[in-house]
C-alpha cells in the first residue's frame, strides 16, 4: 500500500492494479487493450485505457451510462477502430500497427438485445459461425452447445417463438459455438425480467466456465458486477478508475467516485491522531500504521458498517425508515445535520424520532479520503 491515489491515473502498484494483470505477466492474457483511445468527433469515449483479461478469467466492466464501457467492448470486437493504442488477442495484434476486421478476430459477442437472426431457426443461428467447420461436424457442435445452455429441445424454433431468457441463452450458445478464446457480453442480462435474471446469470457464468473462454462482461448493475466476475473494472468518462477483485473494489475503493458508485456510502468529516480515527460519532476505529500522524480526513461509512442502539440521551435521531424486506434501512440525522444510514436486521424497526447512539461495527476498516482520493497510508506531510 502506497501513498495518495491520484484519481485519474491509478498507479500500477495500487490495491486495485490498474492494468490488472492478475498473474503478473506470467502468461499472455487472452485479451489486452493497451493505451487505447477512441473519440467520436470531439467527444472522447475511451482515453488511454489499459486492460487485460487472462485466459479463463471473467472480467466485468462497470460504469455509469455513457462512460465508454460499451466502446471498450466494440474496440475489442473490432466494431470500432482505436484512434491510438493497440488491441491484442493472445499474442496476435488485432488493432494498432495492423488491423484485423471483426470477422477474422474469432471472438464471441453477446448483445443486450440478443441480436438473433430473426429469419433463421435456433440451430441455423448457432451454426452461422460454424461455416468453416467440415459439414459433418456442424450438427454435433450445435447439439453440444445447445446442451451446454440447456436448450436441446428448442433447435427448430424461431427466435420470435422464444422467451427473453431463452433468446439470451441461444445468443450465448451461438457466440460460444465457434470456440472463441474470448467472449464479449454487452449488458447481456439487462433486457431480462428481474426474477429471471439471477438464474440466467448463474447459468451463463457456468457455461462460460465450462468452455474455458475468457469473458469481458459490460454491465451497469453493481450487484451483477460484484457477484459475477473474477475481477471488476470501474470506468468513468472513458478512464479506468480501478481494477481488482470485487471485494477489493468494494472495500478499498481508490476514490470517492468508485466508493459511491459501487454501493451506498455516507461521508463524515473525521480526524486521525496517533492511529485513532474520530468523528462526530466518537471513535470510529483505529488505523494501523498511522501512529505519530495527525490529519483531517473524511471517513466513508457503508450502511452495513453503522450500528445503532436506542439511547434516550443520544443526540442523533432516526429520521426515516425504509423497509427492504430482509433488512431495514435506517436514516439517522446527526447533531451536525449530516445523515448516515444503517442496515438493521429484519426485526429491528426504530420509530422515526427515536434518539440513537451511532457507532461503527467493530472490526470495520472504514475508508479514509482526502479530497476525492482514498488514503491507504498517511501522507508524509501529516507526520508529526
Amino acid at each position, binding site marked *: 500500500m502506497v501513498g495518495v491515489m491520484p484519481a485519474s491515473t491509478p498507479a500500477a502498484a495500487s490495491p486495485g492494479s490498474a492494468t490488472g494483470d492478475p498473474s503478473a505477466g506470467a502468461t499472455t492474457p487472452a485479451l489486452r487493450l493497451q493505451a487505447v483511445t477512441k473519440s467520436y468527433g470531439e467527444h472522447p469515449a475511451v482515453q488511454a485505457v489499459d486492460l487485460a483479461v487472462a485466459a479463463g478469467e471473467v472480467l466485468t466492466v462497470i460504469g455509469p451510462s455513457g462512460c465508454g464501457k460499451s466502446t471498450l467492448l*466494440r474496440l475489442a*470486437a*473490432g*466494431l*470500432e*477502430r482505436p484512434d491510438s493504442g493497440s488491441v491484442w488477442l493472445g499474442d496476435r495484434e488485432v488493432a494498432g500497427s495492423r*488491423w484485423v*476486421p*471483426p*470477422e*477474422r*478476430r*474469432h*471472438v*464471441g*459477442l453477446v*448483445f*443486450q*438485445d440478443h*441480436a*438473433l*437472426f*430473426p*429469419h433463421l431457426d435456433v440451430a441455423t443461428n448457432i451454426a*452461422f*459461425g460454424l*461455416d*468453416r467447420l467440415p459439414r459433418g461436424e456442424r450438427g454435433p457442435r450445435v447439439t453440444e452447445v445447445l446442451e451446454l445452455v440447456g436448450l436441446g429441445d428448442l433447435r427448430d424454433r424461431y427466435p420470435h417463438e422464444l422467451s427473453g431468457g431463452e433468446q439470451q441463452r441461444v*445468443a450465448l450458445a*451461438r*457466440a460460444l459455438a*465457434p470456440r472463441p478464446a474470448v467472449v*464479449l457480453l454487452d449488458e447481456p442480462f439487462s433486457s431480462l425480467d428481474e426474477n429471471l435474471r439471477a438464474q440466467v446469470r448463474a447459468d451463463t457464468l457456468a457455461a462460460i466456465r465450462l468452455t474455458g473462454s475468457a469473458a469481458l462482461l459490460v454491465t451497469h448493475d453493481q450487484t451483477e458486477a460484484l457477484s459475477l466476475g473474477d475481477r471488476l473494472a470501474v470506468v468513468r468518462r472513458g478512464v479506468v478508475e480501478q481494477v481488482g477483485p470485487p471485494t477489493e473494489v468494494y472495500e478499498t475503493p481508490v476514490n470517492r467516485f468508485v466508493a459511491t458508485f459501487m454501493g451506498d456510502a455516507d461521508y463524515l468529516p473525521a480526524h486521525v491522531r496517533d492511529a485513532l480515527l474520530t468523528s462526530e460519532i466518537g471513535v470510529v476505529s483505529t488505523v494501523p500504521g498511522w501512529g505519530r500522524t495527525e490529519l483531517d480526513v473524511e471517513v466513508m461509512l457503508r450502511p452495513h458498517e453503522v450500528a445503532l442502539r436506542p439511547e434516550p440521551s443520544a443526540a442523533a435521531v432516526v429520521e426515516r425508515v425504509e423497509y427492504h424486506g430482509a433488512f431495514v434501512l435506517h436514516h439517522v440525522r446527526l447533531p451536525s445535520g449530516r445523515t448516515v444510514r444503517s442496515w438493521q436486521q429484519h426485526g429491528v424497526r426504530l420509530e422515526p424520532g427515536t434518539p440513537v447512539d451511532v457507532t461503527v461495527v467493530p472490526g470495520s476498516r472504514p475508508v479514509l479520503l482526502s479530497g476525492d482520493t482514498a488514503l491507504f497510508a498517511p501522507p508524509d506531510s501529516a507526520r508529526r
Partner: protein
Amino acid sequence: MTAPAPAPAVAPAPGLVRPRSRRLLGAGRPGWSTAVLVVAALIASPVLAVALRALLQGGLQLPGGVGRMVVTTLLLVTSVALGTAALGTGLAWLVSVHEFPGRRVLSWLLVLPLAMPAYILGFVFLSTFDYAGPVQGALRSVLGDDLGALPVRSLGGASVVLVLTLYPYVYLLVRAAFTDIAPTAYDAARTLGASPARAFRTVLLPLARPSLAAGLALVTMEVLTDFATVQYFNVRTVSVGVYLTWKGSFDVASAVSLASLVLVFALVVLGMERGLRGGARYHQRGGRGRGLERRELTGGRAVAATGACALVAALAFGLPVLRLATWAWSAVADDNPLVNDRFADHLTSSVLVAAIAAVSCVLVSVVLAHALRLGGGRWVRGAAQATTFGYAVPGAVVGIGVLALFEGADRLLEALGREDGTGVLVTGSVLGILLAYVVRFTAPAYQAVDASFGRIPPTVSASALTLGATPGRLLRRVHLPLARSGVAVALTLVIVDAVKELPLVLLLRPFGFTTLSVWVYELASENFWERAALPALLIVVVAVVPVALTFRTRVTGQAP
C-alpha cells in the same frame, strides 16, 4: 412528365431526408466504401458533364429566342408553384382540421392524381376543352359562334394541367406536417384560447412552412423536367428548347448551353427552398400520427367541403380515367389493328427497360445501404446522401448530361484510334436510357431499401461479423433476407417510375425504339386520342400501384 414520388413516407423530398443517428459498424471497408464513391460519381456524372462541357466550350452558346424561353419558364414555374401551393395547402388544411362526410376516403383519393402523368392528363384536357372538344361545342350551341376560340392551348392551359397533376406533392407533405409535427403546438395554441383560424395562421402554417417549401421544390423540379406536356400547349420553356435543339440539329454545344440554363434554374429553386425553410428543421417528438383535433362541419359547409375535395379528385383523376376508359373501350370494340399490332411491341420495350432499370437501381441501392452499414466515415455517408439528389435534377439536364458523356467517350475512342467512336451519340441507345434511369430513380429505390435496412438492428450485423461472416456473406445471409420487403418496394417503385417516364426516353431513345409512354405521346401529339387511350390507361393503372401501397401503409400502420 416524370414519375412523381408516391408519398413522402417512401421518397422524401430532397430537403426532407430524415436525420439518421444510427450507430454503424465504425470500422469501414475500403472495397465497399469505394463502391459507394463510384456510385455517387456515376450518378453525379451527367450533371458534372453538363457543367464541365459548358465551361470547356467557353461559355454558353444560346440559340435565338432564349430570352422568351426564360420568361415563359419563369411564368410557368411561378403560376404552377402558386397554384399547387394554394390547392395543396388548402386541401391539406381541409382534411386535417375538419371532419366532413367522406373525409377519410377523399383524403386518399386526393393523392391519386400522382398516378396520372401530365402528358396523359394533358391530352385528355385538350380533347375536352379544345375548339373541337365537347365543352366548347356545348358552349357554342348555347351562346352561339361569336364565342370565338377559347385560349386553351396556352400557358394558362398548361398551368392548369400541371397544377392538377402536381398538387399532391404539396398536399402530402403539408398534410404530413399538419398531422405529424404540429398537433401538440396546435393543441397548446387552442388551449391558450386561439380560434381555429388563428391557430392555423399562427401555428400550423409556420410549422408546415418547411414542408411546403420542400413540396414546392419538388413541383418546380417536375415543371422544369417536363418538355412533353407543355408542347401540347405550344408553350416553349427552356427544357423544350433543349429537346428541340438537340432533336433538330444534334448540336451538343447548344443543347448543353440550354441544359446548363435549366440547371441554373434548378439550383435557384434549391436555394429558394433552403431560404423558405429558413434553416428550420422541426422534429417534434410525440403525437406522431395522432393527428389534429378535427372540427365537425355541418350543413352547407360540410357539403361544400366534400364537394370541393370530390371535384378536385374528379377533375384530376376520375373524369380523365373515365374518358380514357370510354375511348379504350370503343377502340378495342372497333378492333383497330393499330391497337393490337404495336401494342405488344411497345409494351415489351417498356417492361424490359423498366425491369432492367429496376434491377440496376435496387442493386445500386443495396450496395449503398450495405456499405453504409459497414461504416466508412463522413465521405462515404456524404456520397450516399448525394446519390439521392439525382431525383431532383431535371430530366433535360440528365438527358443532355448522358449525351455529353457519350460525346466525351466518342472523343476518347477517336483519340485512341477508333474512328466511329461509340457511334451512339446521334442514334441514341438503350444504355443511355438506363444510365439516365439509374441517375433519376436510385433515390426512391434507395429510400425504400434504406428504410428496410434501418429496421435491421446494428447488433445483428455486428453479431454476424464476429461470427466470422465476411461482408459478402453478411449481405447474402443476413441483410438481403431481412431487407427483402424494402427490395420489393424499391423494385415496384422503379418499375412504375420507369414505365411512366417520358422525357428521358424521348431525348435518348434509339431510332425505332418506342415505349408505351412515347407511343402515347406520339399518338396524342397527332390528336389520335382514341388510339392513345388504351396504353395511357395501362400506364395509369400501373402507376396506381405505389399509391395503393402507401394507402395500405397508412391504414395498417405498417411500412410496405
